[in-house]
């Protein structure tokens, strides 16, 4: 695998790592499998691409994040006020977003960004000549670092601690004067803001947006998150918020490298989602399979001892 390919994988990994961070917040912290993600990723890409094509790439990123906040709030509202089951709430929002995303892109299913300035071209232009090939990498790293640092500090504040407790022990939460409906809303809004920002960055990175960009994004984000957890587990004795955040970013990069390797091993692009589904299944089921294998060995030994 060439260095250029590796750098490309790292750039994309950094962009997608925001989805992994979002799932850390919604899936791991709030304990909600939030399927809004598939829709809000495209929403961010659509909003980001549209504003970029109109000549406002930086505003595009902010608009993407803001749109994500709204999407997350809709899902949260469905769950908390209208008592729709969490998974169903996400599916409803995701479905509705399909129509909205088409509208955001001006009733088109794809939106190429030809001959326009993006945050990446602007950033590269500001860099000295020698660093320019690293422009995309550096800017992605910068944004991801800023977002993850903010997330880290947020989770230590009063509100952040309340969000964490909401997913951890709901009985405790309302007995400790925290309104779980509020903390759920905050958590889902922030998570989808990160997802949509990731979509907005990706659209500008690859210079186009299309309606299917977000399909399967939950699974990809989960795969990254879990790979990151496995890695963090190897190096950190007692995992905390910091190691989980770093793990999620690392996991997203590793996931992209695996995909890049699969591609160079001539797996076709259309098979990639199947590959990600397999990675997620393997990662999630790993403990169960390991335990079953241990039990199998234990029984085999017991049988041998009985025979002897």
């Amino acid at each position, binding site marked *: 695998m060439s260095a250029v390919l590796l750098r490309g994988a790292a750039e994309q990994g950094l962009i997608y790592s925001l989805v992994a961070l979002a799932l850390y917040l919604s899936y791991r912290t709030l304990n909600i499998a939030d399927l809004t993600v598939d829709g809000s990723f495209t929403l961010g890409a659509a909003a980001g691409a549209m504003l970029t094509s109109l000549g406002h790439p930086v505003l595009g990123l902010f608009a993407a994040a803001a749109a994500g906040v709204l999407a997350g709030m809709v899902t949260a509202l469905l769950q908390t006020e209208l008592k729709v089951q969490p998974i169903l709430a996400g599916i409803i929002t995701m479905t509705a977003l399909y129509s909205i995303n088409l509208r955001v892109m001006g009733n088109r299913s794809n939106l190429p960004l030809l001959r326009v300035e993006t945050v990446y071209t602007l950033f590269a232009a500001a860099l000295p000549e020698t660093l320019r090939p690293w422009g995309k990498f550096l800017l992605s790293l910068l944004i991801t670092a800023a977002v993850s640092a903010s997330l880290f500090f947020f989770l*230590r*504040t*009063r*509100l952040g*601690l*309340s969000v*964490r*407790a909401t997913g*951890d*022990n709901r*009985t*405790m*939460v*309302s*007995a*400790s*004067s*925290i*309104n*779980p409906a509020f903390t759920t809303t905050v958590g889902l809004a922030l998570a989808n803001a990160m997802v949509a920002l990731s979509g907005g960055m990706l659209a500008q990175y690859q210079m186009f947006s299309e309606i299917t960009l977000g399909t399967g994004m939950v699974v990809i984000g989960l795969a990254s998150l879990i790979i990151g957890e496995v890695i963090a587990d190897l190096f950190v004795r*007692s995992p*905390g918020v910091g190691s989980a955040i770093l793990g999620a970013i690392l996991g997203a990069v590793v996931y992209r490298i695996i995909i890049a390797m699969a591609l160079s091993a001539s797996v076709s692009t259309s098979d990639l989602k199947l590959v990600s589904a397999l990675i997620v299944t393997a990662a999630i089921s790993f403990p169960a399979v390991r335990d079953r294998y241990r039990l199998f060995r234990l029984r085999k030994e017991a049988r041998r001892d009985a025979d002897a």
Partner: protein
Amino acid sequence: MLTLKSISKTFNPHTVNEKKALDRFSLHLDPGEFVTVIGSNGAGKSTVMNAVAGVFLVDAGQILLDGEDITFMKDYRRARQIGRLFQDPLSGTAPSMTIEENLSLAYLRTAEHVSPFGLSAKDRAYLRERLAALGLGLEDRLSTRVGLLSGGQRQALTLLMATLIPPKVLLLDEHTAALDPATAEKVLALTRRIVAENHITCMMITHNMRSSLEMGTRTIMMDAGRIILDITGEERRRMTVPGLLERFRAAAERELDNDRMMLD
């Protein structure tokens, strides 16, 4: 401090499972009063506490806390003034968060003067000091995840969290029933000390007849959603466990039955 005016609650009304849990139940607690609650299965002991905490709204009646009508207040809003401990020692703390994070949560939510951005070094020192006072050595394990603590340690931590900023009323729902006898004794001693030090108005459901007389300043006995015995002062000091059972039989016209009841 706490006044329940003729509250009623019926579960599953108009069905075969209809259960009248509270029937025009009235109770008044003076500031600093510590009442222990005993009674048979399904007498409505926990229902009273859930009604005060706001787990559900009562069908009729009025609940006043320190003069304020809280009958229709949401549970999480009441929780600013009401501390609660459950029987399950796991229910009061967040297992994947550390001791320090759990304490910060309890401290930051109630302490108005503290910055919402987290603990200062001074706050942290104060929390350590309060933890040390539990006498369980938890002050040296601030970054331990709470899920790794024993049930007794978790219940002691929950007690500290609930009283870190003294609540107007503390509700204890058999909070030592799931602990082994030695640990239960320790947590009861802590409860007694913390409640006395902070002059907290307290209501404690217990399955232990002896501690219902030893702890607190007043004992009430419930049956079928009503109070059938309410003793305090000299009468309570002279009361014995067999005496309590006798009084139950006289008032309820049957034997006291409670699967968990400890008579010694």
